[in-house]
């Protein structure tokens, strides 16, 4: 009892002021005031320090303090405005100081980032109803992702990292806009001609074999460990062989994809078929249901969560397989080809543009399957909860 009363009467700051992120941000901002924002070359060739704009500093500190004074939505808004306005102004200024940014710049960047972090933790603690909560849950990672891009841009430009090593996102974006036809052709070659057919063939083959071995428990017991083993193997290593067999065209990419995704599909489908409960199977028996009726009406629907698990894993594997297979040989088009050749030519921005397209394609593909999964396995506890 005495402990509790003692701790509640602890001296020091009131509860709402105990925000380490806020204090750190204020400290950074004040320090930034006395440090140069950047060194600009004067007429005489000597770099002259540029003072940090005090307006920005005042705005940051005001935002930080206001957010503590107003614990409501108003505080969140002020926090959002002060951190993102500062970041925006810094982003606007940074091209002028490319490679010449001083400590003042970095400290201001850090303190605006700290305030954004504080905003995210405040938003995370909010509890809203229904749709608004969904929107908030979407907004939080978006803010996080935007800041990743922002920091990438500022660090690369501000510190003057050679673009060949790591181009800033803005340049990658510009490159994407510039070379849309090229990227589209690569996407067609790799994704539409390689990944998709391979995905459909591989997944269907795994499923069909799972249905075929379902009637032979002996084969099943043999195939399951082998399949599980095969899922852990570096199957991607067959890529050079497939390129030898099927040539540089999409055929070899399809073959690699099929081989890579066959076993995950087989193993998951077999496991899904086996997952039907004893009581449910007995129920079908009391109805004198045939093997196919039991399969269609009980075991297949019941296996859907497992099957979709494989479909999701395979969507990622398929894209990797097709791109890596292109490293071993491809016509002069395709995402893997683009990545390897443009890197050789030091066109790093085009390499990154291709990677961005691959990432977008990969996550869209995955997201699409996850969406279908939600529609079909709506009844599963993991989807309901």
């Amino acid at each position: 009892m005495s402990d509790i009363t003692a701790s509640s009467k602890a001296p020091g700051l009131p509860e709402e002021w105990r925000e380490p992120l806020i204090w750190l941000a204020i400290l950074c901002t004040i320090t930034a005031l006395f440090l140069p924002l950047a060194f600009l070359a004067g007429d005489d060739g000597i770099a002259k320090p540029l003072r940090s704009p005090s307006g920005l500093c005042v705005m940051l500190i005001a935002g930080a303090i206001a957010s503590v004074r107003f614990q409501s939505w108003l505080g969140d808004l002020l926090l959002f405005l002060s951190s993102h306005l500062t970041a925006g102004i810094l982003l606007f200024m940074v091209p002028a100081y490319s490679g010449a940014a001083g400590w003042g710049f970095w400290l201001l960047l850090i303190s605006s980032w700290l305030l954004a972090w504080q905003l995210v933790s405040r938003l995370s603690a909010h509890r809203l109803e229904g749709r608004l909560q969904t929107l908030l849950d979407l907004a939080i990672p978006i803010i996080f992702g935007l800041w990743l891009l922002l920091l990438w841009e500022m660090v690369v430009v501000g510190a003057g990292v050679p673009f060949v090593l790591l181009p800033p996102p803005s340049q990658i974006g510009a490159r994407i806009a510039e070379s849309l036809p090229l990227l589209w052709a690569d996407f067609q070659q790799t994704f539409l001609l390689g990944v998709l057919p391979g995905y459909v063939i591989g997944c269907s083959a795994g499923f069909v074999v799972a249905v075929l071995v379902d009637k032979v428990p002996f084969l099943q017991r043999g195939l399951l460990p082998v399949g599980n083993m095969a899922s852990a193997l570096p199957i991607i290593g067959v890529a050079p062989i497939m390129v030898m067999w099927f040539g540089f065209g999409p055929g070899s990419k399809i073959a690699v994809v099929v081989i890579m995704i066959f076993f995950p599909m087989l193993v998951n489908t077999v496991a899904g078929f086996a997952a039907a409960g004893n009581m449910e199977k007995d129920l079908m028996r009391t109805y004198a249901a045939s093997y196919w009726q039991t399969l269609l009406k009980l075991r297949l629907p019941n296996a859907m969560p497992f099957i979709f698990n494989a479909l999701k894993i395979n969507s990622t594997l398929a894209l990797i397989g097709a791109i890596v297979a292109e490293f071993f040989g491809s016509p002069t088009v395709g995402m893997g080809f683009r990545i390897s050749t443009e890197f050789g030519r030091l066109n790093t921005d085009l390499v990154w543009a291709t990677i961005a397209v691959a990432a977008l394609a990969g996550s869209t593909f995955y997201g699409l399957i996850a969406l279908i999964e939600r529609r079909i396995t709506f009844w599963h506890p993991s989807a309901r909860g």
Partner: protein
Amino acid sequence: MTTDAMASPSSTVRPGLLSRALSGTFLPVLVVVLGIIAIWYIAAISMNSTFQRSLDARAEATPTTIEFIESTLNQERPVLPSPHQVAENLWDTVFNKKISSKRSLVYHAGVTLAPTLLGFLMGTALGILLATIIVHVLSMEKSLMPWIITSQTIPILAIAPMVILVLDAVGIRGLLPKALISMYLSFFPITVGMVKGLRSPDKMHLDLLRTYNASSWQTFWKLRWPSSLPYLFTSMKVAIAISLIGAIIAELPTGAVAGLGARLLSGSYYGQTVLIWSALLMAAFCAAMLVALVGVADKWVRRRMGEKVEAGS
């Protein structure tokens, strides 16, 4: 009960043995593996026959069917080498060469395994750290977790060679860049698995520790960590396999010097299919060993924890 069981021992033992052999996994797996080898032989014969026929036509030879099949299985550079050719090559490069020799497959496997293990350890450490932060800091969970899941859908493996070259340009060479690729690939499964694992203790157990006024540090070590171990080992099996794949792929752009990936690449440059297949089988063997090793550690830890639980209760 016991008298009943002893009354008819012979009738239970005989079907028991047979059904045990049928219900176990050893025999079925053996049959499946033998089946795969048989299919391999048949495929080798059919795929190599075109080239063999043109060889025979040029030599104006008229071999019997047996001779023809024999020669399809023993070509210099077959489309699909037969299992015994690959086995011979494996035996030769594993046992008949000095380990330090560049012709030894053990040497190449070692070159690949070093970054695999280093990357795996770094990835596991990073994954556990991230999962711990995510479980304890709400804002990190909300902002980081969606990105961790999204990043798994991005074909990171496909850009691994490029990351290697970028690091090379900055001056990071040797073991570390390859290990970094492996780490990058292996921390995802660990993070996702550990977040699940650290969250796995049920509410009742957490409430019990709350009644003891346990600190979150104590809750972590006494409850969350032990109950997350099964999840950790499951994701470690995935992580170590993917870590090996990362190390192999990471070797592709370094100019094919050493390592299993380099063997694959040089084999495909020079059309030496036997070399590719033996490197592939070696990689498969390494993967199986690594996963088995994690499995052994898993069993060992489980047994120890099981004993502890029994002693405590």
